[in-house]
């Protein structure tokens, strides 16, 4: 299932491509009557590719954000299906709810049997609504917790896929204590003695993302983002202006490359040119290769070392001044 973006509504930064695409389309229509324009067409195609490459080589943070939120972006189920067509889904928190915004299952990734956990945004309008646009309820985090405990019990690695605007700011979510649901996941993920690898595939939104993000290794897709608050939230609080989203994106350092430089992220996974939505298979394979590399690598640690490795990783995150001891 490959998607071509050219015919779709372009992202804001892709608008320069649109003029060219229009020209190409026009010429293509005339091609039958006038074979002479074939070379023109080839040149335009070349230009198009060049421009596209150029645009994608200098994306601004907000462009990454647009790509990360692209409505055709592959979601957790797209990856799980490609990694293991026979993956087995686990449902529910056993306490009254099965949150479709959190997907849980058992699958093989290469030679690794893993517990897969990932947020799900939903593709059709109905799916989107059911998945609450990728914002899990507390019950979703508790479903993930069931997966975490399942993995620990059966000594299965945990692979998490993160693509969520964050936890849902709703009344029931507060009533059902989403703060506790997130906090317990942070604590329990920190404590498991199996490998945990997280991949930010789209939006890594705040505590709702971190709730399945306490991992030995954190990977990010090339155009994914990860931040402490949504850029919109940041702009409206700090700039008191919703127009300043681009500035907020810039200031927060939320792109994969920046977070790699900050040492929070361990690897950036290539996306196909134009973004993951252009070629699901390729991005799924890239992510799979990255996961296998890290899972293979983590196999060298024993169970207590796996926990220590993870706890040490987070123990060392932070930047502050401390006067030298006297």
């Amino acid at each position, binding site marked *: 299932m490959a998607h071509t973006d050219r015919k779709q509504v372009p992202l804001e930064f892709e608008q320069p491509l649109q003029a060219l695409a229009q020209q190409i389309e026009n010429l293509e229509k005339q091609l039958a009557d006038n074979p002479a324009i074939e070379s023109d067409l080839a040149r335009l195609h070349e230009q198009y590719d060049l421009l596209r490459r150029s645009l994608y080589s200098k994306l601004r943070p907000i462009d990454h954000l647009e790509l990360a939120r692209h409505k055709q972006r592959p979601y957790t189920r797209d990856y799980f299906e490609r990694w293991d067509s026979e993956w087995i889904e686990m449902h529910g928190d056993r306490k009254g709810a099965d949150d479709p915004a959190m997907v849980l299952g058992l699958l093989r990734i290469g030679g690794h049997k893993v517990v897969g956990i990932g947020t799900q945004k939903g593709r059709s309008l109905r799916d989107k609504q059911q998945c609450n646009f990728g914002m899990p309820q507390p019950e979703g985090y508790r479903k993930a917790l069931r997966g975490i405990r399942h993995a620990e019990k059966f000594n299965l690695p945990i692979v998490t896929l993160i693509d969520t605007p964050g*936890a*849902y*700011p*709703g*009344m029931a*979510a*507060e*009533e059902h*204590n*989403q*703060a*506790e649901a*997130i*906090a*317990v996941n*942070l*604590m*329990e993920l*920190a*404590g498991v003695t199996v490998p945990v690898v997280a991949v930010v595939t789209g939006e890594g939104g*705040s*505590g709702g993302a*971190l709730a399945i*993000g*306490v991992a030995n290794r954190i990977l990010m897709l090339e155009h994914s983002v*990860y*931040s*402490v*608050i949504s850029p919109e*939230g*940041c702009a409206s*609080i*700090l*700039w*008191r202006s919703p127009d300043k989203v681009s*500035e*907020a994106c810039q*200031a*927060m*350092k*939320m792109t994969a490359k920046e*977070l790699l430089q*900050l040492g*929070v992220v361990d690897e950036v996974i290539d996306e196909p040119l134009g973004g993951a939505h252009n070629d699901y298979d390729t991005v799924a394979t890239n992510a799979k290769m990255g996961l296998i590399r890290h899972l293979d690598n983590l196999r060298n640690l024993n169970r207590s070392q796996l926990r220590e490795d*993870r*706890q040490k990783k*987070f*123990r060392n*995150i*932070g*930047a*502050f*001044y*401390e*006067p030298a001891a006297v």
Partner: protein
Amino acid sequence: MDLKEWFANRKKAADNSQSKQPLTNEEYCALWTQCFHCRELLYTRDLRSNLFVCPKCQYHFRIGAVDRIEQLADPGCFQEMDADLSSADPLGFVDTDAYKNRQDEASRKSGLKEAVVCGTGKIRGRDAAIGIMDFGHFGGSMGSVVGEKVTRLVEHALKHSLPLIVISSSGGARMQEGILSLMQMAKTSSALKSFSDAGLLYISVLSEPTFGGVTASFAMLGDFIIAEPGARIGFAGRRVIEQTIKQKLPADFQTAEYLLNHGQVDMVIERAKLADALGALIDLHQPSAPPKHSDAKDKSKQKVAAQSTPTRA
């Protein structure tokens, strides 16, 4: 700087910064404070001697870390830890003002270097590791320093087998430190996992207000959770929720009492009884008979005890 000096300095700053509520103005409230809830005009000195609880309506004012230590810890025994940690500016963050400037302003207003004060002390005679957040400093937001200090406090409590008490008051994560502030949630929770696995007691006290990344990490992980009356506690802010669901929330939504009714906290207790409750809880979780092979631990506890003054009991 000895303890006395420390307290004197802190109190000076505190007098300038504490008990500010929306309806007061700075000059006025040095002497007088209007109750945020019942609007009674209160003589600030009386309010302070009543633990910053309105004598008329029992409204619990926000209080700063220094006042809280005075109220809670047995006199003269609090030993601050990691007082010198201060914020860096890892992202070079600038919004309408630079993070650096905002930090300076926060310190000027609060008299604190950061939004949490950590240390060891005694509460009603029992040794404890104590962390106290101060909303007056940068909205009690958690950046790298708050995360690091809380983590160190947990590690200290684990090393010395001390009960841990954290009094939270926070608007959430500190955006100006970006992803690093988010990761403090994981860092503190991870430290608490090791602490919890050792079978040690952590009592979390939630005070007005506790939100966001602090609620969704160490504040909600207490073995026993206490909230102060009327304190507003939640993950998402009230306004954000109302905008999202496009309806008005009940007046008592996210109050301590609401949380009690919804099974999220164990106890709502007035400030005057907090120290007694903490003492009783520590007692109830200490083994009835001395555990076997605990000589080493007992000695390390005695060392801490030797540094502190007698308790009032």
